[in-house]
């Protein structure tokens, strides 16, 4: 039986198409194989992008490893909302050590498994953008450089949301956080700062680097599956909107992620051994205003006085991403 590739232009996603897909492309969430690795009952906010991303990512990793998975977790929202003892939402062996050492802890776990000849058990490390791009960056770079057999997943919501929405090196320009207030002549986070961590990961020439968002969950799952086909250091950077920190309605999480992709703000791609091997094309580029407007962290760009100058700079950055990664579909 052959299958016709399907595109659902009504929504731009596969949201209604699961049962129309070939079995191997269906979401693990729709199957009896779903492990619920991050079980229900946790304390994430309504509309939390990180909880959604983590559930899809870890369940997909569980599926491909046949349940032989150990996770190390950085301090942060994911750690706090999933576990205060005696409750835990984790149905997999899971360890939280510190904020800044998750990649190294994962390295240690991988080393222990190797020395014990248990190569079938795989290791995932996960953290937010603060735990990844800032405080955990040294350990992460060390893990990359040694090519340790770890999949590191960064759930990027653009700030320290657990401590009350402070700026991280993943906070985008102009965004208001508690430490980049929307006051003064240049409100919000400054331009010209921040780290492009997927590019930095690629510069380590590790086997696999990919970005994903929670709006394309099957793409996210596919990237986890692909990542697990490699041995060595792998990096998955998932954009996870945060209703609390971004100030958007909690029903808009998926939409915000989709707009981040379709505006060019967040390029979705994958790379092997430092070279881009695939990008998620944008069918119709949306202006960045559509992405910025529903978010209170950008409210100062629209009122009391519209800041077209700032919006233009954000648009330029998005356009640059589109050129750099060739994100627009050929006409």
């Amino acid at each position, binding site marked *: 039986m052959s299958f016709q590739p399907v595109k659902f232009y009504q929504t731009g996603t596969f949201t209604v198409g699961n049962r129309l897909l070939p079995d191997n492309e269906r979401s693990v969430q729709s199957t009896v194989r779903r492990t619920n690795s991050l079980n229900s009952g946790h304390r994430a906010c309504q509309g939390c992008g990180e909880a959604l991303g983590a559930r899809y990512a870890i369940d997909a990793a569980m599926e491909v490893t046949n349940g032989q998975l150990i996770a190390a977790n950085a301090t942060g929202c994911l750690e706090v909302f999933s576990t205060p003892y005696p409750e835990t939402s984790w149905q997999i062996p899971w360890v939280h050590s510190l904020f800044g050492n998750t990649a190294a802890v994962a390295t*240690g776990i991988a080393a222990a498994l190797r020395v014990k000849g248990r190569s079938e058990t795989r290791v995932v490390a996960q953290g937010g953008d603060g735990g990844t791009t800032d405080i955990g960056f040294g350990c992460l770079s060390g893990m990359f450089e040694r090519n340790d057999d770890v999949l590191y997943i960064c759930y990027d919501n653009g700030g320290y949301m657990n401590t009350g929405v402070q700026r991280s090196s993943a906070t985008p320009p102009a965004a208001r956080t508690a430490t980049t207030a929307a006051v003064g002549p240049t409100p919000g986070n400054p331009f010209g700062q921040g780290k492009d961590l997927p590019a930095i990961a690629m510069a380590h020439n590790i086997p696999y680097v990919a970005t994903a968002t929670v709006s394309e969950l099957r793409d996210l799952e596919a990237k986890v599956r692909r990542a697990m086909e490699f041995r060595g250091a792998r990096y998955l950077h998932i954009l996870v909107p945060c209703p609390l920190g971004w100030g958007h309605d909690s029903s808009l999480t998926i939409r915000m992620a989709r707009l981040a992709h379709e505006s060019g703000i967040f390029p979705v791609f994958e790379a092997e051994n430092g070279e881009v091997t695939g990008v998620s094309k944008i069918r119709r580029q949306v202006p960045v205003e559509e992405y910025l407007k529903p978010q209170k962290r950008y409210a100062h760009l629209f009122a009391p006085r519209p800041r077209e100058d700032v919006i233009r700079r954000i648009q330029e950055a998005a356009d640059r991403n589109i050129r750099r990664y060739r994100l627009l579909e050929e006409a």
Partner: protein
Amino acid sequence: MLKQIEGSKAVAEAVALCRPEVICAYPISPQTHIVEGLGEMVKSGELAPCEFINVESEFAAMSVAIGASAAGARAYTATASQGLLFMAEAVFNAAGMGLPIVMTVANRAIGAPINIWNDHTDSMSQRDCGWIQLFAETNQEALDLHIQAFRLAEELSLPVMVCMDGFILTHAYERVDMPTQAQVDAFLPPFQPRQVLDPQEPVSMGAMVGPEAFTEVRYLAHVKQMQALDLIPGWAAEFRQAFGRDSGGLVHAYRTEDADTVVVALGSVLGTIKDTVDALRDKGHKFGVLGITCFRPWPTVAIREALAGAKRVIVLEKAFGVGLGGIVSSNVRTTSNAADSVFTVIAGLGGRPITRDSLARVFLEVEAGTAPALTFLDLNRAAVDRALARERESRRSGPIAEALLKDIGLVTAQLR
């Protein structure tokens, strides 16, 4: 087997006999020769199965050890000085999670001013972190303590720090009796973790604990350390039977039976102190020595018993609490019945030689009742006074250390 080898090499060989499964290495003097030795053994296949990981910092070294230990592997690392401070957050974390990691600390001063030589400021800074802290007097004891440390750590599910004086021990070539693999295997059973990350039986480790149970969790850490006080003497006896020598234990008493004055100290300086006390004994002065091998947990009963007959106690320490005075002496004062007669002598900071002459002088001052409660051994008072005067005279008096050294000039000739 008798060998004439460097202290670091002896420790490396002893650690290898303990069959560590994951070793993380980050270079810092004076610890480097230990991990270099182990690295070579792993690389050559002599030590197998074992993963030797060159990490990017001490913080990563302890974190890799945490992950490895949590996944059920016997984990080891070594550090010193700034390295211990750089990993401090993970040091506390390993203890809090109850992971039986063994770490050598090649004791070294802490900067600023940067100083690579020996004192105990590094280990003392971590005295309340929840690790068991053992201090070696000799290279033989250093290597023996590592064998005991793995057993102690794994029995109690607590990490153990083996402290040995940097350079004085780590770089000294001395005769040691290296046990055989069979002897070590008989003394140290395979690691059976109490908690392990295992897909067959998933657990969550290191999650948050609130006020409702935090006190109890912390108290249990204390209880475990108290259990070590019960275990260590028995194991030292067992070690003596198996290996034929005294190593470890809680404390070592030397000529304390009829002593009026007992000198308490940790580490390699005990040798010099014993020599000094022998000479004083020959002249009729009733001195004794109490070496503390187990500093954490603090062996209250053993120390109280050893000091029971003393009229005076001198605590000679290679670190001090700035703004307080002695650290070990503060512990001794809570233990000794003669708390008012505890004298503190700070000595050997940043590698300053501790000579028998200087020790004898200060010991006799204490005996004569002319010593202050706190003495900095061989302190150059004139240089200190000049530095203080400079600060009074000029607001911008500059870096303290630089001006002080200009005053002193070349010092090597002054060292005896």
